[in-house]
Structure formats: C-alpha cells, structure tokens
C-alpha cells in the first residue's frame, strides 16, 4: 500500500470513529489536541488499525509515538513494508 492509500484508509477510520467528515482529518491532525481523543478513543483506534491493516498487535512502546494521523500513516507504512 502507498502512503496515500494508507492515509485514505486511516482518514475513513478516524472520520467514522470521531463522527467527522473525511476532509476534517489531515496528516497533521493531533489525536488529543485536534480530535479531542481520550485514552479509550486511542485504544479503540489502535484496535481498528490492527484489524483493518492486519498487522497483529501494536506494541505498547510504539503507541506513545503515535500522536498524529501522520505518525500512524508512517508507522503503518513501515509495518506493511516489513
């Protein structure tokens, strides 16, 4: 998958979870500052990512680095190309 494709899929997942329009989700969107996510939202999103991209369980130490949509897209791109 290309970065663009990963972003589009993430955009859909996030828009669905946070009840937003797709175009409100950008690479720079911060989960906590821009989307108002709490800890449950973040775990819910991570579980949705694991399922959607079939990447197994994301390690807890990796989660702390996933602060923006762009962080997730780059992380997934790396995982999918492994």
């Amino acid at each position, binding site marked *: 998958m290309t970065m663009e494709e990963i972003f589009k899929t993430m955009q859909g997942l996030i828009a669905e979870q946070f*009840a937003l329009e797709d175009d409100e989700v950008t690479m720079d969107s911060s989960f906590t500052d821009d989307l*108002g996510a*709490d*800890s*449950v939202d*973040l*775990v*819910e999103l991570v*579980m949705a990512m694991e399922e959607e991209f079939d990447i197994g*369980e994301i390690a*807890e130490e990796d989660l702390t680095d996933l602060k923006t949509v762009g962080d997730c897209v780059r992380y997934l791109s790396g995982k999918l190309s492994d």
Partner: protein
Amino acid sequence: MRIIIDAMGGDNAPLEIVKGALSGQKRWGMDVTLTGDTVAILKALESCGVKELPKGMEIANTTETVEMCDDPATVFRRKKDTSMGVALQMLRDGKGDAVVSAGSTGALLTGATLIVKRVRGIRRAAMAPVIPTTTTGRAVLIDCGANAECTPEYLVQFAYLGSFYAKRVLGLDNPRVGLLNIGAEDSKGTELQKEALCWLRQAGEEGHLNFIGNIEAKEAIKGGCDVIVTDGFSGNIMLKSIEGTGSLAGSAVKSIFKKNLLTKLAAAIVMPGLNAFRAMMDPNKVGGTAFIGISKPVIKAHGSSNAEAIENAMGQAKQFAESGLIADIENNVELMKVEKEEFTK
C-alpha cells in the same frame, strides 16, 4: 435467554455472584454462563449446596481477573483471559444475550466499548441508573459517571438514550427530558449546558424529544422530569448526594423512633412504610446500572453486590435484552447527530 455473568468481578466474588446466579436462574427462568476460574466457581456452588451444575448453567473457564488497580484503557490488551473480557467477547460473539458484572466500572465500560462496541454513531456510552423521585417514583439519571468530560453533542445523545430507556424499560409513553442545571432559566450554566440547551430545544420543537428545559437537582428529585440529562461528573455528584441524603434521613428517623417507649411503638406501626423506603434506596434491591449506547446489553452491578443484587441485576439484564431499546437507538441515531460548527452560534 442466556445471561453471561462475570463470576470473578466484585468484592464478594465468586461466592455471592454464584449464589445470585443460582437464585436468578430460578427466578427469571434463564440460562446462565459463568465466566471465571472453574475450580473457584465449583467450590462456590458447593458452598451453596449444589454438587452438579444445574441444567442451563455453564462455566467458561478463565485464568485472569480484572483488578481494581488495572488501567481500564489497556487491561484487555494486557490480560487476554479475564472473566470480564471473556464475558464481553462471548456477548459480542452471540453466545449470550446480556452481560452482568460487578467488577471495575471503568474496565467494564471500556471493555464494552472496545469489545462489544457502541451502536454505530453513538459517541459515548452512558451509565443510566434509575433514581427514586418524590411524585413520579423514578427517573433516569444519564450520565452518572461514565463520562466526566462531555461535549454538547454527548449531552444531546444522552437525552435521546435516556428517553428511549424511559420508554422501553420504564414503560413511559412520552418521557419528560430535563437538562440538569443550576437554574431553570436559559441563561444558566456553563457553555456546555447553554449549547446543549439550544440543540435539545430544537429536538423538542421538531417533536423528537419531550424536552422541558433546564431543571434544578431539587426539582428533578421531586419528579420534575423523567430523564435527567447531565455530564458524568455532575451526575455522579447528584447520585452520591441522593445516596448520602437517604442515609442521613434514615439515621435521623431511626434516632427519632428510638427515643422512648412511645416512639418505639410508633415505629412498629410505620415499619412497613420505613422498610419500603429503605428498599427504594437499597442498591441490592435495584441490582445494577445499564450501559446505554453499547450495541448489546451490559449491566454493571455495584462492586459490593450480594446474591440479591446479582439476582436483581439479572432481571434488569433480561428486561433490557427484551425491551427493544437497542433497536430504537440504532434506528434513530441520525437524529442524534449534531453539526459541530453550529455549536458556536
């Protein structure tokens, strides 16, 4: 109907949970799955004089328990085989019709959200206990602590969720919905209440809700509305204040009646009424609190539940599962959407 019960959750698990499951199974005529440590559950059954699993009762063995010190947000990723997590997975997978747990509230809510999932379009599940009121007898308080911080959209959704609950579970035709506030006037409250009020008024004008406006706590307790909408922080304070006031009133009445022989005789005469009042305030008689907004019924029994509380929570779970409430929420979720940019109006 099969109810899945977290046998290891709560201060008195597994003995009181198992005892409650046995009496609940008989009383409500339902099948039961107990999740937890098989050895501990069988031992508890034995303590109740039951040597073999009764017909319709099953055990799903698990090796872990959600502890109060576990982080609710991550416990189900860290512990894969908890009695609570497995109960929720079984509910998700259609192996039962409802879950009852007396375990950690935060973990149960998070688990229900992550494993069973919310109804599509519902932003947050809420806890909605039924509280006693003076004139009408009862009202739904939503939310009572699941969501300490709320947006106007959450409150609008809670109003619908509470209204459907009052219709389907309490059997009220046209429940009156009030927004908990520090005064009845539209200008009262923080931005949260003011914005929510606009949206709720609109929903009322469009005929989707029987919204009566802001309501003060004292008026709500008098029966001024059937659904009290609030954020979880304020709702929890209101709930605990009611519990505390009930306890204070109980102690005061007791000391009055204990004064002398005459007052003791008077107490004997009014005892049935006093017992009925005590029952109204007794959490074991109520059973539990429903999580509204989750796609399947999940009932939180209070942490110190005894067998009676579990039995009553099972009855609540049955009523919830049969009520059609979740279908109502699914069919009306479009009404509950709020355009965020218009909040600034």
